[in-house]
């Protein structure tokens, strides 16, 4: 008895110029679950995410979120609907510190006008203090307290990734799209990030769509997995079924064997 789909993509096709990035992909996400989208590089995963949050417009297909059709929305509208995301290539505000970046994530909660800010009206001060408190809590949750006032451009890549996640979570999104949030991290950092993502999912109820390359992480934390290859969907289901599917294994042959070995698979689909 599964809950009705909360986010649906139906027949999505995306092309750039003459290049077809995604062809006729459909899948659903249920509320409160963690869904991973995996596939070799260039399979169209980021493009798919960009369609969900309004940065790209699909050539064909429908996207439905919480009952609404969102094929034509702008990223701004997506934010107001409670859709948040992180970017593969980092989209931090390089001119600001960690806490300032996280505070921008609280944007939707900020109500004061510029005049109130200029005059330091009581309501504005209260709001700033409250939101700062929230930002500090989120920073602590991500383990970044040491770097609160540091300009983000001075931070190591792994820390920057964490700041971006903190900023995205600070907005308290209903649906969070994560585009390779752990790229370039070592095992310990990945462990931490996985923990953070799972906790955000359990405690805040945030539904998560995650693009990820590390099979171990995917098997570990996902409720369901969708696999893309050359812009087409080749598998969709629970992690273990997907891992054993011959189409998936075939697509991944040629990829580094560690990817699969860590999840305990040998080509041929046998469990180790």
């Amino acid at each position: 008895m599964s809950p009705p789909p909360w986010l649906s993509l139906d027949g999505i096709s995306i092309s750039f110029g003459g290049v077809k990035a995604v062809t006729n992909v459909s899948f659903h996400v249920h509320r409160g679950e963690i869904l991973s989208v995996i596939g070799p590089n260039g399979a169209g995963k980021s493009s798919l995410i960009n369609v969900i949050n309004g940065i790209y417009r699909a050539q064909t297909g429908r996207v439905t979120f919480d009952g609404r059709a969102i094929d034509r929305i702008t990223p701004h509208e997506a934010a107001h609907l409670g859709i948040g995301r992180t970017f593969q290539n980092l989209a931090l505000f390089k001119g600001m510190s960690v806490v300032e970046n996280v505070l921008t994530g609280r944007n939707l909660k900020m109500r004061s006008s510029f005049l109130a800010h200029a005059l330091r009206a009581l309501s504005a001060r209260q709001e700033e203090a409250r939101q700062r408190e929230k930002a500090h809590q989120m920073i602590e949750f991500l383990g970044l307290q040491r770097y609160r006032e540091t300009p983000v451009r001075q931070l190591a890549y792994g820390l920057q990734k964490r700041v971006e996640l903190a900023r995205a979570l600070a907005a308290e999104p209903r649906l969070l799209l994560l585009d390779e949030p752990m790229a370039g991290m070592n095992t310990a950092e990945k462990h931490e990030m996985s923990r953070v993502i799972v906790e955000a999912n359990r405690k805040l109820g945030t539904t998560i769509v995650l693009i990820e390359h590390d099979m171990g992480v995917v098997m570990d934390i996902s409720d369901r997995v969708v696999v893309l290859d050359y812009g087409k969907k080749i598998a969709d289901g629970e992690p273990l079924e997907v891992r054993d599917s011959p189409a998936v294994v075939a697509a991944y042959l040629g990829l580094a064997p560690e990817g699969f070995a860590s999840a305990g698979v040998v080509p041929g689909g046998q469990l180790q």
Partner: protein
Amino acid sequence: MTTSLHAFHAGPAQRIATGWLPPIATWPKAQLALLLAAFTVVPFIANDYWFSAILVPLLVFSLAGLGLNILTGYTGQLSVGSAAFMSIGAFGAYNFALRLPDLPLPVSIAAGALIAAGFGVLVGLPSLRIKGFYLIVSTLAAQFFVTWVFVKFGWFSNNNASGVITAPRLVVAGFDFGSPVGRYVFTLAVVTVLTVLALHMIRSHTGRSWMAVRDMDTAAAVIGFPIARVKLLAFAISSFYLGVAGALWAIAYVGTVEPHGFDLARSFQILFIVIIGGLGSVLGCFLGAAFIVLFPVFLSTLSGHLTGFIDPGNLGNVEKIVFGSLIIWFLIKEPEGLAKLAHNATRRLLAWPLRPPS
């Protein structure tokens, strides 16, 4: 850390004590002392020349630089039309003071600046479609168009035959601020108030929204910032500040209102202030303005000593060469301008004889 998440998620909206003034411990002592001295000591020790030729223009240029910085330094929208907004502020104040003589002068100035702000929004509209460098067409068009309007339509100059009109007298609430000291004090007061308001805005969410648009507007949109409103607000506030600066330029500094004092060269001067002083720094505006005002003075005193080497007629050209070289030097070596240099120097000074912590 889970407790943090708990607190984040469930935390009640508790009242957090905040005062109108931040705790005295966080006030920058040196700058406060300077401000105090500026109000209480300087009026008594400086002479008329200093007031009229150095301090007042320094303050006016700083305000103009602040206006441009809000748009270019904090919001990342390049503008080469600053002088156009200054001229609207100047002509606006003049016309309000002329045609509604019962209006207090500060109100006339504010009214002129509001018109400048409105025009700023108009000029800013293209920035919603056009990005980056192409935007300078809009401000360039504004610069030429506004100059043309004030030259062509005599109504703005009260149909004065010579085209050059006398600025309104600096009388506020019955007090005559027309003397050099008076002009200085009035300008200082206005600039201080506006600077404080600007600092408040910059450090608040308004400032963060500007910087977000500057740093990466796609990400800003994804977070839910209304990009259009943020940009137009920056244009409006920037133009307001430039309008006040223009009015002060006419009323407190040169004493006349003429369109040619607000030409493209002036716009570039303001841009230089902001580049050399440091984009995205309020202190930088003052340092850049100080440089623009003091360097020619320094140069002409120097040429007095070096007669034969630099012919006085060439001073303008030497200035140009030095300004141009400095811009390139700053861009290469210290893109954050004089403000960063000053910051580094203070750190080294405070840590001396040790090296400052990195």
